[in-house]
């Protein structure tokens, strides 16, 4: 049997109005927990971007002079390859560096415009066998003075610390968010249960005159779904406001290189918004679904 849209809208509207305060509490909890989920994903993505060059065991990077000759570059490469203390060497030429740069700043056309492949240095990314700090320092000292080398940047303790800390942080936030999401689901369940209790006489009469189970259930399910969706919309709004605010608040990347690209670009946010929206729908629908099957014994 087709259930009329008008009926569902009216019944759901009545429920939401009647339980306004508890609905508000539920929606806010959903919004806060989803915003935390989003923030955790944002932080994870940001740190991943900022430390991209330092992943996969890379401990130091040997940047070549933009004007270094082919022979000089090859000599440095051969030396690195031959070094028994070194596990792996990756050569990143100007074009690859440029591609990576464009990827990192794809939403900031002014940054991309200011840079051409020529001015970006080619580099060797080096993974030593022993990654302890003094060995890395000794190795980078050794290559700093080679002809054609402009500078050697090593993954300092600071970067490692940032990586570990952010990993801990994002996981922590995620755990809190999951707990809050559980709480949101239960709150939705209880809100629906209260709405059903408030309407128990109507429900009794409906059953008596032969209303189908779905006819009785659907308005309550829609109510839960709406609570989830409103919560998700609020969370997405918060994230959308927070992202550019964070970008403006943090010092620009050229002052503290570590922070370059730590705020995700706006196009990176879309999957996060999508996920937050889906989780909101899921929490709302499942809370309501459990409520109508458990407490609406038709």
């Amino acid at each position: 049997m087709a259930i009329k849209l008008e009926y569902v809208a009216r019944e759901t509207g009545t429920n939401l109005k009647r339980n306004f305060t508890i609905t508000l509490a539920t929606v806010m909890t959903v919004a806060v927990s989803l915003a935390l989920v989003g923030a955790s994903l944002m932080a994870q993505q940001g740190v991943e971007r900022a430390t991209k060059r330092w992943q996969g065991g890379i401990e130091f990077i040997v940047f070549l002079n933009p004007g270094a000759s082919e022979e000089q570059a090859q000599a440095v490469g051969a030396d690195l390859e031959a070094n028994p203390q070194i596990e792996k060497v990756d050569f990143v030429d100007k074009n690859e560096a440029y591609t990576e740069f464009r990827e990192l700043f794809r939403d900031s056309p002014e940054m991309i415009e200011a840079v051409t492949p020529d001015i970006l240095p080619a580099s060797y990314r080096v993974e030593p066998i022993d990654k302890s700090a003094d060995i890395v320092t000794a190795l980078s000292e050794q290559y700093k003075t080679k002809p054609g080398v402009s500078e050697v940047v090593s993954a300092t303790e600071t970067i490692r610390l940032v990586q570990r800390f952010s990993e801990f942080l994002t996981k922590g936030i995620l755990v809190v968010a999951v707990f809050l999401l559980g709480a949101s689901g239960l709150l939705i369940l209880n809100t629906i249960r209260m709405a059903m209790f408030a309407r128990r006489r109507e429900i009794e009469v409906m059953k008596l005159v032969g209303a189908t189970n779905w006819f009785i259930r659907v308005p309550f399910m829609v109510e839960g779904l709406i609570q989830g969706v409103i919560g998700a919309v609020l969370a997405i709004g918060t994230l959308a406001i927070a992202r550019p605010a964070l970008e403006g608040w943090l010092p620009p990347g050229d002052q503290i290189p570590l922070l370059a690209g730590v705020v995700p670009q706006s196009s990176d946010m879309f999957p996060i918004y999508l996920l937050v929206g889906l989780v909101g729908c899921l929490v709302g629908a499942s809370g309501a679904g459990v409520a109508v099957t458990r407490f609406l014994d038709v």
Partner: protein
Amino acid sequence: MIRLENVSKAYKGDTVALRDANVNVDKGEFVFLVGASGSGKSTFLRLLNREEVPSTGQIFVAGKDIGELSSWKVPYLRRNIGSVFQDFKLLTNKNVSENVAFALEAIGRPKHVIQSQVPAILELVGLSSKAGNFPHELSGGEQQRVSIARAFVNRPLILLADEPTGNLDPATSVGIMRLLERINKTGTTVLMATHDRGIVDTMRRRVIELDRGSIIRDQARGVYE
């Protein structure tokens, strides 16, 4: 229209509400169920619209074995059965015509049907002038008329009434019985559980008497005892 074959109903803890009942009610009959409180009258009625399921035996309503009915079909069974109760079960936040309309809305009837059926049924029960009143503004008798209107607006085959005059004074009860008789005359089968000796004795209809779950008397044109 209604047939019970060896129907028993036991609740938890050895309470037997109905014991080996065999009853056959034809279309258009008017049947009184009498007996002391706890004799099984309400259980009898609740078995018919499948608010309860029999422990043993079979129940046929309009030719269908309702014990075999899957739960999603129960609402469709109930659309053929109107129910009236001692406590009316009206919705206090809806007025008279909304209360009646609610029964049609709940089974998805289109608006134009509701708009034509509700005034017609209020006319039948004599409440046209009170269509906009709320239940608390009505007398007990008027409230029971609303509840009968709601039970009958969908023109069910069967009307079940569980002590419909239980809360009403004798004069008002007579009015309610006249209404039920009129409904019965349209061909609707009426089953009514009652304690009201006066009503049963004046109407002289079929009487089924229950005692601690057993049918001890089934008499055409019977009296209360």
